[in-house]
């Protein structure tokens, strides 16, 4: 039951990031930017080269959408799911059998956090910028902002999710969790 609850929590929190990102990237939503997904990519993500013909910009935006954003969202979803499940398994295997012991394993939480941020950031950089299919379609300042945003979102996602999916026994491994969670 505890683990089913954890899976539901993971799905909700990952969904809260991935679903809006997918909607914004693939659907034309009137109140977001220019109200058109491709136009939004062109104007807010692609490199703003004034010499590039408009038609090519559209092709690049479509390529980025299908070959960059879509795999990025799939891989991020999978990666995050795997990471959280591994977190659950690892913390269960710590076999904390007494009070005042779990907090000694806080370093594992920081290790997971580092992996989470590093891999999420790198995936974003790779899929949106450095892979050869869409190489440097995205502008330098834009990819920096996107990576920063991904890292911040990953940080929030990781903290909130681990706050809820970590068992009460292992809660002291999550910073401030014993203070924030009152159950």
């Amino acid at each position, binding site marked *: 039951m505890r683990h089913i609850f954890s899976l539901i929590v993971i799905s909700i929190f990952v969904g809260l990031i991935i679903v809006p990102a997918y909607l914004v990237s693939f659907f034309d939503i009137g109140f977001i930017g220019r109200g058109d997904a491709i136009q939004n990519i062109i104007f807010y993500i692609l490199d703003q080269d004034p010499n590039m013909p408009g038609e090519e910009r559209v092709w690049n935006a479509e390529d980025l959408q299908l070959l960059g954003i879509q795999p990025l969202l799939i891989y991020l979803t999978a990666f995050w799911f795997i990471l959280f499940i591994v977190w659950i398994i690892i913390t269960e295997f710590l076999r*904390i*059998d*007494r*009070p*005042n012991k779990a907090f000694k394993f806080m370093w594992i939480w920081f290790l997971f956090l580092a992996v989470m941020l590093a891999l999420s950031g790198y995936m974003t950089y790779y899929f949106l910028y450095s892979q050869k299919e869409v190489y440097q379609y995205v502008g330098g300042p834009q990819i920096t902002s996107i990576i920063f945003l991904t890292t911040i979102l990953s940080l929030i996602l990781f903290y909130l999710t681990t706050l809820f999916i970590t068992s009460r026994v292992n*809660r002291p491994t999550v910073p401030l969790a014993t203070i924030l*969670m009152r*159950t």
Partner: protein
Amino acid sequence: MADCYFIGIGGTGSKCVNNYVYSSAAGLGPDRLWIGMVDQDDANGNVAESRSNIENYQRVRRILRTPGLSDINDKTDLFKTNITTQVGQTSWCPLPGTAPTLKDVFSYDLLNKDLQDTIDCLYHPQEELNLELDEGFRARPSIGAAAILSRVQENDPFWVNIFNAIDSAKAGTEVRIFLVSSIFGGTGASGFPSIARLIRSEMDKRGIRDGVHLGGALMLPYFKFPKPGEDEIKEVAYAESFLEQSRGALDYYHRLFEKEQRKTFDQLYLVGWDPLIELPVFEKGGNLQRNPALLPELFTSLAASRFFMSNSVDNGIFHIARNDANAFSWDDFPEINDQQKIVKDNLSQMTRTALAYREIYYPYLVDQWRKVKNESWFRNTLLKQGVDFNNDETSLNFNNLLAYFENYLDWLANMIHFSQNATVQGIDLVDVNMFSQYENSQVTISDKVRDHQLKQFNSLISGVNSSSLAKVFLKMNYSRVPKNRTGIGAFVGALYESCKS
């Protein structure tokens, strides 16, 4: 539920009292129980130990079962039995004072010549009439019987409890009285039939035929000890005479009960052990006589529980044998009133709770509580239940609990270690080596159980693969405190339930 009375007579009787108090702590006793002891050797170490055990039990029970303050709730077996005693007189000594003799009892010097001659015929003038009885009746039931019967008085506060109980049967209350003693030795062998017949005669005097049931457990020889020195051999009980005395006593009981129209005992349990358990040390009496708990004594507790807790008292004389003469395991314990595994389940749960409390939780309930005050188990089972850790009394209560659990583990370890030698394959109940050592004929509880031993916590109880300490801690963290649990009772209740096998 009937009003239950448990009376331990003599040294073995007081050991059985001790045993029954621990059994009651584990939830094997009735809801209400009055306990008393009868021993001429009032300073006897075993009597003192049982008295102290009763007081500690009552103290811990108050900590765990004071509604509104701290309550573990009435559905939990732990410390279920409300044990009462005669205040200030847990044990009754037939002949109080320093070194009384049988001469004093009969006021021998004041008797006329004819009576003196009669007494001289019944008792040896030098060896028996002048024998100092401050350390018991020294395996002479004939002396004990005379002393006990002459000293039981209706207005003695100790006996008032029993006689009032008999009276209450007139008002429809069901009363069950259980006597336990050894058949060998002095006080027990003499007191057991004397007190039983006295109770029956009081019933007859009051015209009570129904409502009072009398049960008893007689310990046949089950241990032996080194023969005492030549200078003491006439004064004390010695093991070689046990079988001979038992044979004589059984013959006496047979003739005694056969003659009576109404049976003295509704239920009589006979408990023995073959081969005899060898005790390494011997003390003739006094505060140094503190014989270790032995496994056969536990059977008297189970007999008492069967007698107290059955819906109706069926008449009979009961005996039991183990499945294999060379081994002893949980399967050798009888069921109690159709509850097949109750002995194993309750003793296991109590043992696991005691060890987990001592080794894992106690330090964080006293000195180090601030370190864990935000952990789930602590918040849910203690802070939310109104336990005030800034109050010195809280710490005192946890210390009392620790003391009780340590005594329990000590009792259990003694019982198993000392009973091992009479069973070829050993006693396969609890792995007491995890928390105790047996060296130089002494059992000591480890100051601290090592981590690698605690990792075997799941195999502490033989024949059961129960949950590990990690699982116990997990359950503690997710335990839901019922509404009728409060205070320290909430924590202990959660721990007790988490330690269920």
